[in-house]
């Protein structure tokens, strides 16, 4: 997902009886569905895990602008171009909502930025794949944003107030992202044979990485169990992955495209599709910094940050000067 394999520092989930008074009151509030707000007492692990999860999510939105930014100047029509610009601008906005939510937990924006730029912080594996053709803009909107929505809709009910509220704003805007992607795919699939082949090629390349977005199976993970007890993770990884597959396979049929998985089969008993093996070794390589574009993405973020330094400094210097001038005028009067 946009936040993958978030560690909780728990070695197992405590029972209510094992908790101290503060922890128990906290857990009972979470269990009752009462939102936790920034000034409320919270366990150290909850705070640290949320900072990790929300900032990973924010970094993903920011780095997620890069693969699509690649095609803004080469969009096939002016309308497609303004739509793509609006989408990429939304991603920046989503990153800001999320950084804002993370900051309420006591971490500074500068610290979060530094973690991303130095490579210490993770972001979603999906953004380390290249965007080779215009059809990739369609596949990303349809599949990547579709997968993100699967995860973000339940997070609107998560226990931390500022995160839940940020998710509500994100979800309102995200549905446009998925629909514009599907719209691109529809245009290509109704076009020439070459255009349809381009759409199929994009699906072939983005399908497996999209399934990996949900993270490895986590039904036995302590971190996952702890995050669920804290209600900052609502569903299991496989659960969401299957929901995504079940939703997406009929859409591929509608487009006349073939899902690149020879083992994909409808399982009548489960009422759900079975899928083939996912190459988790590839996933761990990408998460570990060795995906096709990891270095390029970090280099682009660092360059943007450094190139903008003079402008940020200038804005601050101007604001300080204006304030000083107003103060001296106030004293003179």
């Amino acid at each position, binding site marked *: 997902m946009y936040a993958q394999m978030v560690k909780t520092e728990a070695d197992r989930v405590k029972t209510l009886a094992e908790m101290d008074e503060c922890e128990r009151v906290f857990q009972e509030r979470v269990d009752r569905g009462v939102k936790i*707000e920034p*000034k*409320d*007492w919270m366990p150290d692990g909850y705070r640290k895990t949320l900072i990790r999860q929300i900032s990973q999510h924010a970094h993903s939105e920011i780095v997620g602008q890069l693969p699509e930014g690649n095609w803004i100047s080469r969009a096939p029509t002016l309308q497609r171009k303004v739509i793509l610009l*609006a989408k990429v*601008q*939304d991603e920046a*906005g989503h990153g*800001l*909502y999320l950084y*804002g939510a993370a*900051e309420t937990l006591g971490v500074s*924006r*500068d610290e979060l*930025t530094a973690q991303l730029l130095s490579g210490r912080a993770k972001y979603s594996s999906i953004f380390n794949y290249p965007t080779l053709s215009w059809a990739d803009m369609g596949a990303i909107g349809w599949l990547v944003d579709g997968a993100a929505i699967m995860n973000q809709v339940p997070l609107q009910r998560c226990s931390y107030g500022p995160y839940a*509220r*940020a998710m509500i*704003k994100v979800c309102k*805007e995200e549905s446009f992202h998925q629909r514009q992607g599907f719209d691109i795919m529809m245009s290509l699939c109704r076009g020439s044979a070459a255009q349809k082949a381009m759409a199929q090629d994009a699906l072939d390349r983005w399908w497996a990485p999209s399934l990996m977005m949900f993270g490895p199976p986590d039904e036995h993970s302590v971190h996952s169990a702890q995050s669920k007890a804290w209600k900052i993770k609502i569903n299991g990884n496989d659960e969401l992955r299957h929901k995504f597959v079940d939703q997406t396979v009929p859409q591929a049929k509608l487009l006349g495209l073939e899902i690149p998985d020879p083992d994909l089969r409808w399982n009548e008993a489960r009422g759900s599709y079975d899928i083939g093996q996912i190459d988790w070794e590839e996933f761990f390589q990408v998460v570990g910094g060795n995906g096709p574009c990891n270095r390029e993405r970090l280099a682009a973020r660092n360059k943007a940050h450094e190139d903008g330094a003079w402008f*940020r400094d200038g*804005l*601050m210097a*101007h*604001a300080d000067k*204006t*304030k000083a001038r107003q103060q001296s005028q106030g004293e003179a009067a």
Partner: protein
Amino acid sequence: MSNWPLWEIFIRGEHGLAHRHVGSLHAVDAGQALMNARDVYTRRHEGLSIWVVKAGDITASAPGDKDALFEPANDKVYRHPSFYDIPDDAGAM
């Protein structure tokens, strides 16, 4: 971005409700906070008016004072119209 102050953003929509807190952002001064709030929080006609307030200038009640502040309202059911049993014959009231 070092030392850029944090601003809390309030937006009033077009349907007459009060300004509502929508989130926060960093900006060097109030003017830039307004411009950034326009871009971050009103890309889809969410508002017709923006307030920006320096986060440090807000005084907030503490979670620990919750009972002292809000508990007294709990036993004053007579403040709600449904407390009073009025016969239907009395008409609109």
